């Protein structure tokens, strides 16, 4: 069997005496689309932050493509192909759309300190940026400061910047949050078009997005894994029904769907 894209081994996270994550183990295969769902406060975002390296794990190990990254800082984990999006789009508000893309592209190409050369004179990087902007339908707003853009566009800038770095393992933290209901189908389409060799871990409240996208679903509850299985299995699971799903399905998403 291939080396898993992501392996968590007994990961715990304690913040200020409070156990946020407790003994989480899970394995995500290469190319898999894994959704992590659970009620608010279940520890989903914390889990993504532990995987991405923004929070150190208190116990346990994190392996990405077989490599132990538990002790690596977040920026070093990008080198193994791991990138994460944020609940609030992780974009630089005072920079233009183009500059946001350039920052990502420059990291991919230059040494991290990259003192060499002037950005505006680097034809190659400018051409690549132009390509990315076109691909993501951002050419119209390429010279607009991102803070002026609506949320959906900011999300697109965020994703475009991350894709410019060709992630192998992409962590999406509630990417559909803040999207209008009528934007969701197009967004699902976009997610489905992600290259198949890319592994995606998705934290999402919109069950519509989760069930139309995920190969497998992990349910977190009070910081622990409550269930793990295919979307069908999860839908049938009585614990999940009781803890979370029924409410979520009946609640906001029934309306959205």
């Amino acid at each position, binding site marked *: 069997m291939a080396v898993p894209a992501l392996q968590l081994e007994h990961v715990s996270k304690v913040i200020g005496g409070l156990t946020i994550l407790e003994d989480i183990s899970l394995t995500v295969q290469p190319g898999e689309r894994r959704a992590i769902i659970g009620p608010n406060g279940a520890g989903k975002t914390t889990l993504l932050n532990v995987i991405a390296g923004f929070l150190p794990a208190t116990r346990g190990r994190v392996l990405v493509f077989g490599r132990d990254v538990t002790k690596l800082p977040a920026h070093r984990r990008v*080198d193994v192909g791991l990138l994460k999006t944020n609940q609030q789009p992780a974009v630089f508000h005072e920079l233009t759309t183009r500059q946001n893309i350039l920052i990502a592209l420059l990291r991919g190409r230059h040494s991290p300190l990259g003192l060499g050369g002037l950005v505006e004179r680097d034809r190659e990087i400018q051409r690549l940026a132009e390509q990315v902007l076109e691909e993501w339908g951002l050419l119209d707003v390429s010279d607009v400061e991102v803070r002026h853009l609506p949320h959906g566009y900011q999300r697109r800038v965020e994703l475009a910047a991350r894709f410019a770095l060709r992630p192998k393992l992409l962590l999406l933290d509630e990417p559909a949050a803040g999207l209008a209901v009528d934007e969701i189908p197009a967004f699902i389409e976009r997610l489905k078009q992600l290259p198949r060799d890319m592994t995606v871990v998705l934290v999402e409240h919109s069950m519509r997005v989760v069930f139309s996208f995920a190969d497998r679903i992990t349910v977190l509850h009070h910081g622990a894994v409550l269930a793990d299985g295919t979307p069908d299995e999860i839908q049938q699971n009585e614990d999940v029904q009781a803890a979370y799903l029924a409410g979520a399905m009946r609640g906001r998403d029934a309306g959205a769907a």
Partner: protein
Amino acid sequence: MNAKSISAQWRPAAILGLLVLLLIAPFVLPTYPLSVLTEILIFTLFAMSLNILLGYAGLPSLGHSAFFGTGGYAVGLLAKYLGTPAPLALLIAVVAGIALALITGPFVLRTHGAYFLILTLSLTQVLFGIVWLWRRVTGGDDGLPGIPTPKLPFLLGRVSDTANFYYLTLIVVGIAIATIAWVVRSPFGLALVGIRENERYLEGLGYPTWTLKYVAYALAGGYGALAGGLFAYFKGFVGPGQISWLLAGEGMVMVILGGAGTFWGPAIGTILVLLLRYEVSAFTQRWVMILGIVFILTVLLLPQGIVRLPNRIREIRAQLRREAPLPRPTAPAHHTPSERAVERVIERS
């Protein structure tokens, strides 16, 4: 954005024009204004070096005079005890500034916002204390007088001493500013702005943000020390005043007044502060009060600094033509780098 591309088009011509003006200045200006202009050049470099931290990387340093003073004392001590020639002394001053930054960086860069401000302030106070108390070497509050003014040999006898040192300053500051321009327009410069905007997001894109800040801090220290070295030569004297946090505060005012995070803003701020000091103080002792009023008005009306004035006027004119209500300032106040630095200070306190 449009306005920006128009100004970018004229940038080479404008810089060339400025350079010509600066080159012929000694033939036009009497001695006193020429020495004020020399001082403006030196402090422009000082403000621009602080701008790397405060404006680009969003690190509000209130201790930048530590580097200015280190450069000054390096030059002063070398001149007094070893008679080191100026080019070498200035080089050593730069190295001393960088070394101070590399040593103190790991301590001050652990913090952000208010804590960074206080730690850099403490750093400069510690150095001030050392200089003040170590009388035997530094001369204490008497400082080190009698630093000989270096002169450009090829201009000896052709221009006045004031003009000679002015040209020397122009060359050194000109080269330094050109390299700063290169730094801030490099991928490194763009990454610094990313740190100012959101350090964590930048880290998420794979940038080693701490290392970037460390390098920026060292660069700012080197340039700051170079300005301090030049100033010691300019005055022929170095004293504790050149290391005092008051000077660091003045540098901060220069940067924010002109426009933090913009390239030419600090130069404009420097010109304004020094002209106020020398012109207004001719008829009132209260020039600092005038400076305060100017500063408050600028922050209220032009939150991105005086350098944005043309854009602002253009906006207002465009709005008037449409007979619509006046637009808000180009950016909401809390979005300017300097304001955000202050905001972060408030947030964390």
